[in-house]
């Protein structure tokens, strides 16, 4: 306890990191499940079904499988860079999330008041871009160090693509920065509070719609996802930069990709979609009950669905999960939702809902769009997206200089 009182910030940060790591790792695992389920539904299939009820234990099974697979290192590989690449990719993908705040509330851990973010910095946005710009090394080094043709081509493609789209990605965000006048996520979200005409939330997506479109497109390319997944286009490059990686090193690249997806979705939420702000005006007090009500309805659905299921494990597990959901939901609606816990839940509820919507958009795009050709990808990035984000930047600057911005 003496250590805790001497280094309060250190101890609280470590606790927050441990919680965040657990939550993010679980979210990563279940994002793969979610993606497979949604893509399966788009393609009229069932997706993972047999490992646990509705395939809910599939991520766990995949993880164990990766752990026990033989770890093959190509004899001609450059050992240092080959080992470094997956660690770099995953570590950097997870580090960026330390800068993402998920709510305005101040909670207390071990008696220390602390914010719902691991690292609150006045230049958080630049730091986030700095960390994610170094993330290219993971892919590049993986491609180079494998000492094999397909990974090299994949690594080259991917680094060219990431360098090209990073320009548009960064430029598309500058419009929001001009309007908010700060690099701090708390200020950026605070600037988006309020409503136009008493109903339209004053989020940056409306004045910065061009910027939002540019950001979303560039972000998909930045994370090497369909329709910009040329670096791993399996029809031409086997698996691109991670062809020579097996076992858990492959899983690390996989997790890094999903981690980057979560990061760019969080960033889009913070910059364009009002972060943790509720879309409804403050005077509608019933919105305070929404997180609790959502949990209770979800719990009821789980109980009914579980009891109607033909799988015996679903019959056993789902009602229990449903009861837990209902219990937590009840806690969130206590005292007319003015209880401190219920209030602290509001921000994260809206934040996570918006991030989830964006992630769904990602998966949806993957399920419906065909892959670009490489020259199309490059000319789209440089000849369309970059001018578009520049037009947005110049237009926003003119508005700000003339003092027309809301």
């Amino acid at each position: 306890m003496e250590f805790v009182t001497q280094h309060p910030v250190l101890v609280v940060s470590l606790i927050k990191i441990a919680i965040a790591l657990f939550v993010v790792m679980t979210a990563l695992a279940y994002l793969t499940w979610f993606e497979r389920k949604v893509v399966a539904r788009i393609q009229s299939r069932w997706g993972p079904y047999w490992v646990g009820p509705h395939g809910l234990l599939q991520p766990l099974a995949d993880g164990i499988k990766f752990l026990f697979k033989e770890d093959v290192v190509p004899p001609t590989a450059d050992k240092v860079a080959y080992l470094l690449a997956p660690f770099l990719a995953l570590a950097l993908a997870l580090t960026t999330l330390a800068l993402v705040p998920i709510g305005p509330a101040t909670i207390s851990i071990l008696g220390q008041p602390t914010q719902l973010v691991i690292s609150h910095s006045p230049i958080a946005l630049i730091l986030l871009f700095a960390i994610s710009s170094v993330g290219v090394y993971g892919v590049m080094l993986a491609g180079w160090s494998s000492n094999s043709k397909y990974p090299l081509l994949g690594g080259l493609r991917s680094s060219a693509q990431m360098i090209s789209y990073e320009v548009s990605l960064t430029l598309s965000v500058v419009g929001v920065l001009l309007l908010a006048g700060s690099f701090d996520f708390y200020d950026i979200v605070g600037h988006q509070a309020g409503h136009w005409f008493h109903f339209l939330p004053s989020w940056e997506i409306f004045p910065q719609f061009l910027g939002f479109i540019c950001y979303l497109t560039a972000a998909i390319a930045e994370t090497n996802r369909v329709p910009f997944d040329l670096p791993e286009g399996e029809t031409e490059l086997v698996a691109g930069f991670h062809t020579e990686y097996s076992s858990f090193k492959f899983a690390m690249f996989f997790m890094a990709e999903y981690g980057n997806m979560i990061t760019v979705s969080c960033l889009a939420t913070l910059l364009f979609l009002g972060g943790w702000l509720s879309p409804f005006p403050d005077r509608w007090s019933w919105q305070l009950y929404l997180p609790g009500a959502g949990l209770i309805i979800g719990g009821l659905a789980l109980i009914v669905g579980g009891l109607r299921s033909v799988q015996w494990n679903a019959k056993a597990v789902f009602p229990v999960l449903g009861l837990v959901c209902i219990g937590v939901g009840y806690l969130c609606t206590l005292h007319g939702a003015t209880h401190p816990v219920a209030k602290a839940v509001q921000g994260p509820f809206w934040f996570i809902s918006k991030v989830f919507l964006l992630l769904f958009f990602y998966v949806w795009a993957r399920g419906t769009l065909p892959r670009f050709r490489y020259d199309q990808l490059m000319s789209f990035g440089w000849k369309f997206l970059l001018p578009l984000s520049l037009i947005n930047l110049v237009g926003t600057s003119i508005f700000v200089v003339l003092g027309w911005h809301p």
Partner: protein
Amino acid sequence: MSVAMLVFIACGLFAVLGAVGLILAREPVHSALSLVLVMVALAVLYLLLGAAFIAAIQILVYAGAVMVLFIFVIMLLNAGVEVRTNLSHLARWVGLPLAILFLAEMTYSLFHEYAARTALAAGGAVAGPVPASTEELSMKLFTEYVLPFELTSILILIAILGALVLAKKESA
């Protein structure tokens, strides 16, 4: 010893190790990676000095853009392992003495500065707070130093034009 001192020593060591590795590595990619290590270590040193913005820009520009392009070119040209030669005449008779001179100069000024600082500290003088916030930095950049800033932009523009001219096909 304070935590800041420990971090300083660790980063200094990493920076020197990276610099030595940059010269000694025979694989071009390893050299480039050592340079990245130097830059990241420098960024942490900036952070220790309270210049978070400069630290972030250092990583964003040097580690995240310049070195990525370096490695990209190395990969694209598929540069092989470097061939070692003996020192050339120029390196032996001009380079080595210059390097030794530079080292001596650095050592001298470092000790000189250190002595001056300890004398100042003994006299009770403390270094004033450094203006480190982004606002102050940008105000300085766009008022006091606007001419060098614009000149640098023009320099970069010339470089872009040069690259365009070089990349243009002959039969235009």
